[in-house]
């Protein structure tokens, strides 16, 4: 029998197309990139694991191509574009870590543009201003009623993710909160 080929369908496929949304403006106030991480996982370490001593809360770390967000004491959420090797995970999290594949479990977007802070203020429950949320910050908080992970890079570009099943609600929030500024969606 011929082996079936299963076509992968990321969370944004068929849900949101690239293009312009909201008010028709010359320059969109919010730029959105729909993300699709190839690999994601929850990593749970024993209490006081020395390998993770430098991964304190409040930041999103980039180590060996892996983005690491501390979620709770001894708990991390990692994302990367290629599956990290066992050795890499060993170095990052020690030998006692439990790695649980969570690929596809979250819906992620990148947000940037002149009005990105205005848009975030209309939903995110923490202070996203660079004074309180400087480059490299990463936190878990609420966006309205959705639990979200939020981080910002050196260029002031934010990454926001929620549970996959709530992707529709996160997109609805983006459309509503940013509509007045004009939205440009790319992939």
């Amino acid at each position: 029998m011929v082996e079936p080929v299963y076509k992968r369908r990321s969370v944004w496929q068929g849900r949101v197309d690239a293009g312009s949304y909201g008010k028709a403006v010359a320059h969109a106030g919010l730029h959105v990139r729909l993300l699709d991480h190839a690999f994601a996982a929850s990593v749970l370490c024993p209490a006081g694991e020395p390998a993770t001593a430098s991964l304190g809360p409040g930041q999103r770390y980039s180590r060996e191509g892996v983005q690491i967000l501390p979620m709770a004491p001894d708990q991390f959420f990692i994302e990367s574009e290629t599956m990290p090797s066992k050795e890499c995970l060993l170095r990052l999290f020690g030998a006692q870590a439990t790695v649980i594949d969570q690929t596809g479990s979250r819906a992620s977007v990148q947000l940037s543009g002149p009005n990105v802070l205005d848009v975030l203020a209309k939903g995110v429950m923490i202070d996203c201003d660079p004074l309180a949320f400087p480059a490299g910050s990463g936190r878990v908080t609420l966006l309205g009623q959705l639990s979200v992970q939020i981080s910002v890079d050196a260029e002031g570009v934010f990454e926001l993710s929620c549970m996959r099943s709530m992707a529709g609600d996160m997109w609805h929030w983006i459309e509503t909160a940013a509509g007045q500024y004009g939205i440009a969606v790319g992939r």
Partner: protein
Amino acid sequence: MRLPCPYCGERDSREFTYRGDAGPTRPEADEAMADYVYLRDNPLGWHKEYWLHTVCRTWLVVERNTVTHAVGTVVPARNQRAAS
């Protein structure tokens, strides 16, 4: 209302779920279980409560004043036994 999570910092109360009195400890003796499940003090003033910070899934023991709403110490519940 805002509550300070030791891991995440001060956050809006909507990020938390309230459970109840953090005073009683689950007893070893069967005879004490009914009191543990049902009896609670209802003080005017300071008392300790269990709150869950839903975004980091950490249970917290929050010392809070029921009259002034002031928040005192907040420790992770897993450290409570060590602390008390």
